[in-house]
């Protein structure tokens, strides 16, 4: 827990973080379960409640700050990453949580998203990916699969979607995890991991929009198919999945492949062991890219690599300059260089 600044035991509960505002998301929306999970996580982090700041952009998910009893700021569309960066840089002791969606961070805020990842400030980004614009009532988003029929793509989309994990790792991301909105336990566990990671942590939440994109993640989340389509990754453990725990992932040549344990001479020893801490991102990208029906979707912490945070680098320099600069005040500064006295 190296980013926890106050280690005194705090007796906070969920109640401390519930706001008095009416939650106005649609009944059945995945946002409700995510809110619950975050309320589970915050009291357990050992951080005083006034040190949390929840930041968002625009979209259904971005109403989130109003529903948490913390400091919060609901920004403008796509710019939450810039808000969060300013907050963290100006006051590094704050625990900054950024709530965003696939429209907010993959489209209008795509630029800010890749740059925040590159700079690596210690903020936690929860990316609600429902693959649709919900607040504007049903247009395709940059994560909508090619061919998606929506209000603005009556014949289906003509464009390839982004996979957020590939984007994060491509932007030199140090922490990427993925969860499903149907599993509060998984979300609570992974959000906690994200909070503990010092640096920018991105958690992609495969989220259902009950109104405009219902069942978009059904292959991964539905009771009937989830066991065969979810691979929950744990550090140091083999990548085994399936209802009977009889399927696994192996590396064949330069590709990942699904195998059945016990068939064709495959045993458990052949299965890839998950190493989220490896600086090399090769396997992490391949894991992020896996999608049903060919593969299970990789869930849990896919990548978690230590690296200096942006604010630490900046403040280290500030401390150095404060100690070593000849200029102790602005009066000193105004008198540097060529000056002359008029008698």
């Amino acid at each position: 827990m190296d980013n926890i600044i106050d280690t005194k035991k705090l007796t906070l509960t969920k109640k401390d973080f519930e706001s008095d505002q009416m939650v106005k998301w649609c009944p059945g929306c995945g946002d409700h379960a995510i809110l619950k999970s975050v309320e589970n996580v915050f009291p357990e982090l050992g951080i005083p409640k006034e040190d949390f700041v929840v930041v968002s952009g625009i979209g259904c998910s971005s109403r989130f700050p109003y529903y948490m009893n913390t400091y919060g700021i609901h920004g403008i569309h796509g710019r939450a990453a810039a808000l969060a960066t300013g907050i963290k840089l100006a006051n590094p002791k704050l625990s900054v949580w950024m709530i965003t969606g696939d429209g907010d961070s993959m489209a209008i805020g795509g630029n800010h998203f890749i740059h925040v990842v590159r700079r690596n400030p210690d903020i936690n980004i929860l990316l609600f990916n429902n693959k649709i614009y919900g607040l504007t009532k049903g247009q395709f988003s940059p994560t909508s699969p090619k061919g998606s029929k929506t209000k603005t793509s009556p014949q289906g989309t003509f464009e390839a979607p982004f996979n957020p994990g590939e984007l994060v790792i491509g932007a030199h991301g140090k922490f990427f995890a993925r969860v499903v909105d149907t599993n509060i336990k998984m979300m609570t566990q992974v959000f906690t991991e994200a909070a503990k990671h010092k640096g920018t942590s991105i958690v992609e939440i495969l989220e259902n929009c009950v109104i405009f994109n219902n069942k978009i993640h059904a292959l991964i989340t539905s009771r009937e198919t989830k066991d065969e389509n979810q691979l929950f990754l744990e550090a140091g453990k083999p990548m085994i999945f399936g209802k009977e725990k009889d399927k696994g992932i192996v590396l064949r040549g330069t590709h990942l492949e699904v195998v059945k344990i016990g068939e064709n001479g495959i045993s458990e020893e052949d299965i890839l062991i998950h190493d989220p801490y490896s600086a090399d991102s090769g396997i992490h990208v391949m894991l992020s890219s896996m999608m049903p029906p060919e593969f299970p979707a990789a869930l849990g912490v896919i990548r978690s690599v230590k690296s200096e945070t942006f604010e630490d680098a900046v403040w280290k320099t500030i401390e150095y300059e404060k100690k070593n600069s000849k200029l102790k005040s602005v009066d000193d500064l105004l008198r540097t260089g060529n000056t002359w006295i008029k008698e």
Partner: protein
Amino acid sequence: MLFMANKKDRVIELKNAVIRFAGDSGDGMQLTGSLFSDSTAIVGNDFATFPDYPAEIRAPQGTISGVSGFQIHFGEKDIHTSGDLADVLVAMNPASLKANMHWITEEAIIIVDTDSFIEKNFKKAGYESNPLTDETLLGHLVIEAPITTLTKEAVKDMQLDSKSAQKSKNMFALGMVFYMFNRGYEGTFKFFEEKFKSKPLVVEANKKVLLAGFNFANTIEAFANTFKVEPAALKKGLYRNVTGNLATSWGFLAAAERSGRNLFLGSYPITPASEILQEISYHKQFEAIAFQAEDEIAGIVSAIGASFTGSLAITSTSGPGLSLKSEAIGLAVMTELPIVIVDVQRGGPSTGLPTKSEQSDLMQALYGRNGEAPVIVIAALSSADCFYAAYEASKLTLEHMTPVILLTDGFLANGSEVFLIPKVSSLPEIKAPIVKANDPDYKPYKRDEKKLSRSWALPGTEGLRHRLGGLEKEDVTGNVSQDPLNHEKMVKLRQEKVNKVAEYIPELSIQGNAKSDLLVVGWGGTYGVILTAIEELREEGFNISFVQFKHIMPLPKNTEKVFSAFKKIVVCENNMGQFVNYLKMSFPQHEYLQYNKIQGLPFKVSELKDHFISILNK
């Protein structure tokens, strides 16, 4: 006109003079000019400078578009402008001569490097024949000096390759001008010693070349006389030379120190504002953070984030960047967080004239946002005033919890003038309305009775957790509200809060009589040139008055009272008439004449005088 002063031995005393150094972009004219400025400071003259360089970094050598210039105006009285036309032109090549013929007086002295006046350079400059031998320079005293040859000659005993040797030819020209104006060169020598500490050969070469130029001017007797400008009667105190961008940066640093807030600048490089970002980057010793963002939007939005946490938040830009920041300024208006947006105006629209100046962002600053989104707008008057304007913008934004747009412009930003250095402790106090922990009465949108500003509760403070955002908020509680009457109330409150600022800014002060034949009105960076025109006209016996607006939104309280004493009002600005239209809207009972210039260039004193006289004679 200048050189018709009394002849006293061989030294002619001048009241003031304008020198323009011009050469190829790589010829080092900016350095030459700034070294001459330093020596002007030592002599004790008041002065103002302006660099005139192309938008391209190194345009093709020898062409008009590659000409870089530096102008200095110095005198024994207060100097408010960098001068209309030059009395002395140093032209290092034909292109710099051609490019500057419009910017010199009819009897200006011209110093040329004859080595560069060769056939191929005439063609590049667009001359059909040698301007030194045809009629181009009739009426001018032309000092012909083979500067390149003499420079090489001066350092021939040193182990310098010919390229390095040639590099110091600008110092030969400087030496000549030093002789011409009876200047000492010790200060410049000291500069060489400090600047090239690790390269003693370069120090030596520059000294030799400068001396060679000085002695050459002395020996050739081309000058019938030399010139001298007596020290100016400036106020007692410690002085320095500042550009507008430097003064702006330092004004913010001073405000941060005085208010006890950390400075946070979120910005993106853009001409002509980048120097502010560069300068703040050097001041981490004051806990000032300069965050170079991925774009203009992230620049301002990161600053809004920093403002939320309690920093003195700034973003700096020019016109195109201000356009990109519009939505975010609206967020700062809605969240009622303090932030200063500096717009160093340049010629527009679109990319426009990046290195030239204009006053054409006024309407954008006042109204360029969606919804009713009033902000405080102030405009710096001069390069040195940028310090005080930045300081005041910071004070107003922190004390009134309202965004401030500070307008400067390319001329103020790059131009320089003499600055009387203040003590930071002598500047007005800045008190931000920060809420104490666990204040039982805290409500996010509860307002100060007088200012109507809300208070500032900083994340990390116990007992003050609250949410801000771009959605309309309920009065007092700050909860999200779509209530129609609440919205109308909040829109009016935000405007009223800005209007109240009029109680906290100085009233207009009139130069000249409170009642006269004509009131000249300007705003922002045109102050120096209009003032000079007015001073000269008043000396010539005209009954003319002048006000310059530094505070645009809100306008000073006594504006209407000042205007009502005049039958004729003329509003001068470097745009199509944005301020005059704003005045027509605010005070429709008056008639306004207007004088506009939209050439990317400042007014000339002479054109203003001519125009004012023609109004007075009507």
